[in-house]
């Protein structure tokens, strides 16, 4: 008889501990899998995770992708802390991208960078927040499941972008579905020269993560959000407004994803312009969920986990190049990471031990 004993831990393992293990174990297991395909895991480790970070272009890519994940991830942390499962970062990002296009091409196309860039981010925040707000209000006032609404709002945002680039905002100079290029004052990389990464977004993201940390852990609002998230019934008994916590957390969550959307279009190494939705959000709104979980639902570690995930994506390309093994290598890394993360989430909270009694009984015969 095998007996598996699962006991709730008196003290949960710290996230720092479990996330480190998730990252290390998933890299280890991915390399083991790769070695079955005749790839030397040692060389793979070097080529995938070390070589890319030795180049400027490597960092440009890691940070461009990483900042999208950072802003989305910090936003998701707020929602997850309130116990709201926002899986709509993808759509909220697209709304931010729409805002950036609208501001730079139609609202104030002549404005200088100093006005243009803050306006893009502010309107991007508002558009993203609106998308979060819709799901937040529906949950708070009508009890509609936010997983469904945020997911469906993703598709709506997707179709809006399609409609815009193929219809009213289509660039007349090309028959490809893209908007006109943004005016140069709106290019985040052109104000960041000579650095190959968007400095405005970098500053914004590195300010927002600590601010969100302070908001969540040092203010009354943050306390209310966390209280609603951990025990809504008890929190309500203490007079904390459920609706307020849910709506505000979704507003902020969506707004931050909106900022990521602004960065995704205006901070791109390509000519900033609104493109087909899958070229703008690229599924990063979903990857951000993994980033937020890896951080242990805390804003500051997101800085680390988002950059790490940016590296994982580049590492996937590097493996493809070195071993001609295809996109499977990228999916392998992220998939194994998600799997181990789910396993560790249980292990973090429960003590698990396995006892093989049959073995004991068999051994007793000797």
């Amino acid at each position, binding site marked *: 008889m095998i007996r598996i004993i699962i006991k709730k831990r008196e003290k949960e393992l710290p996230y720092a501990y479990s996330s480190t*293990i998730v990252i*290390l*174990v998933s*890299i*280890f297991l991915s*390399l083991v899998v790769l070695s079955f395909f005749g790839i*030397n*895991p*040692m*060389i793979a*480790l*070097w*080529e995938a995770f*070390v*070589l*890319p970070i030795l*180049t400027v*272009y*490597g960092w*440009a*890519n890691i940070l*461009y*992708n990483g900042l999208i994940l950072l802003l989305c991830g910090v936003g998701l942390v707020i929602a997850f802390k309130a116990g709201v499962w926002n899986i709509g970062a993808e759509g909220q990002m697209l709304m931010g991208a729409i805002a950036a296009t609208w501001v730079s091409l139609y609202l104030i196309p002549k404005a200088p960078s100093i006005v243009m860039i803050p306006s893009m981010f502010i309107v991007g925040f508002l558009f993203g927040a609106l998308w979060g707000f819709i799901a937040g209000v529906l949950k708070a006032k009508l009890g509609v499941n936010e997983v469904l609404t945020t997911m469906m709002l993703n598709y709506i945002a997707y179709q809006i972008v*399609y409609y815009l680039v*193929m219809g009213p905002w289509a660039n007349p100079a*090309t*028959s*490809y*579905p893209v908007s006109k290029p943004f005016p140069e004052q709106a290019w985040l990389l052109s104000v960041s020269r000579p650095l190959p990464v968007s400095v405005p977004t970098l500053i914004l993201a590195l300010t927002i993560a600590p601010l969100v940390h302070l908001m969540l852990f040092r203010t009354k609002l943050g306390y209310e959000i966390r209280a609603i998230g951990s025990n809504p019934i008890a929190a309500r008994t203490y007079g904390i407004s459920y609706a307020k916590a849910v709506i505000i957390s979704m507003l902020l969550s969506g707004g931050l994803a909106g900022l990521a959307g602004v960065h995704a279009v205006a901070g*791109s*190494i*390509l*000519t900033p312009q609104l*493109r*087909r939705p*899958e*070229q703008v959000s*690229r599924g990063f709104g979903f990857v951000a969920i993994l980033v937020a979980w890896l951080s242990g639902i805390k804003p500051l570690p997101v800085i680390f986990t988002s950059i790490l995930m940016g590296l994982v*994506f*580049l590492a996937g*390309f*590097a493996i*493809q*190049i*070195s*071993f*001609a093994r*295809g*996109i499977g290598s990228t999916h392998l890394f992220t998939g194994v990471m998600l799997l181990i993360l789910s396993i560790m989430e249980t*292990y973090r909270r429960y003590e*698990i*031990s*396995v*006892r*093989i009694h049959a*073995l*004991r009984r068999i*051994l*007793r015969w*000797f």
Partner: protein
Amino acid sequence: MNRAEVLNRNIRRIGVLMEEKSRFLISIIIVAILSAAAGAAAMYFALGGGPAGAAPTKLKAAWIYVGPIGDIGWTYAHNYGRLYVAGKFSSWLDTTYVESVTAADFSACVNLLIEKGYTIIFATSFEFLEPSYTAALQNPNVLFFHCSGWDIYLPGAQPTNLGFYFAEFYQLYYLNGLMAGALTTSGKIGYVAAHYIPEVVRHINAFALGALEAAKYLNKSITIYVTKIGSWYNPDVARSLASQLVSNYGVDVIAFTEDSYAIVQFCQEQFDAGNPVYTFSHYSPMYTYGPNVTVSGQLVHWEVIYEDIISKVYTGTYNKDNLKDKVDYWWMLREGAVELGADFGMPINPNFIKKLNTTLFEIDEKLEAEFKAFGMEKAIIVQDGKKYASIYNLVMLRLKEMREESTVFDPFTGPIYDNAGNLRVLPGLRLNRYELWTMDWFVSNIINLAS
């Protein structure tokens, strides 16, 4: 202490160990990874993988794909070409690829490739045009070959180390159109497009011209319903658009531009359900996904172009200073870069040959002369003093004509009217390449459902 007690004690120890096991295992794994990381660096240089260790004699070529190589369409065909040259030139050529790359990640991939010593880069998507241009300017010693682009689309002057290539399908679309026009019974033909960019519009028009020519010979009235997906690869949308064309518009032949076999599968299902809808292979052989419905199709031989480019780079004919002037491939039937077929070596699915062979039309003197000029006298059937030929033989004649060294026949020869009734190509004139590359109008009898 007897034996049993000793054992029992040991077993208890094992039990304790087991509870401690998880933590112990994790520590082991951490140590293993850290030592692996340290070892990796050492091994990497020991095995000569470092920057200095790259073999200097081999050419290194890389392909950057927009989709997955398993799409059985566009990317699959490019990768087939890569494998072909990799095998053929294995003594002096190394190749690799990166798949499912978005334009935003293109430059990072290029830099990783250059880091690994690759000096020839094939960018196989229209979407990579702008990043290829930027990368070519930034890396003047690397040769960039962009598939489907042209200098008129570039944001600035063409760098000397950037060349273009394309295997053009419009001749094959025209031939497919002839067959579609002969096979339709409802007189309604569908086309599911990826985007309305000039390349696709040209293909839609060539297909429509073929269908209309068949209609003229066979006294049919034909309408072509065109709709678009907005994406190169989206099997779900392709399928649902095909299904709408069939159920809402009564279409019984569908051509498409989409990088999967979703529509072929859909048509086969329609056939199995007793409502045959015919279609064509696109880019790669799709016959096996719809043996009863795939009439013919347009197949590509990228390997012909890749072989030519790579061998000319090897001999030094192409270098970083002359791609702008020398490399602008626009290869078709004559160069063998494209093939008419449901499958390689199967120009027309045997299930349809009989039907196409018995679909006769009256030919005029001009066609009679063409048949004779190409050694197809047997194709001319004389009945009651009138001369007839079959659509099958017309397709074969056009195929021969378009393989000729000099242009004997081109589908885009006037008079051609657009669908608003304007005369777009004067009688006897032929569209030139610039006009074909910027085409933004549909020929007559096309109804654009996506407008």
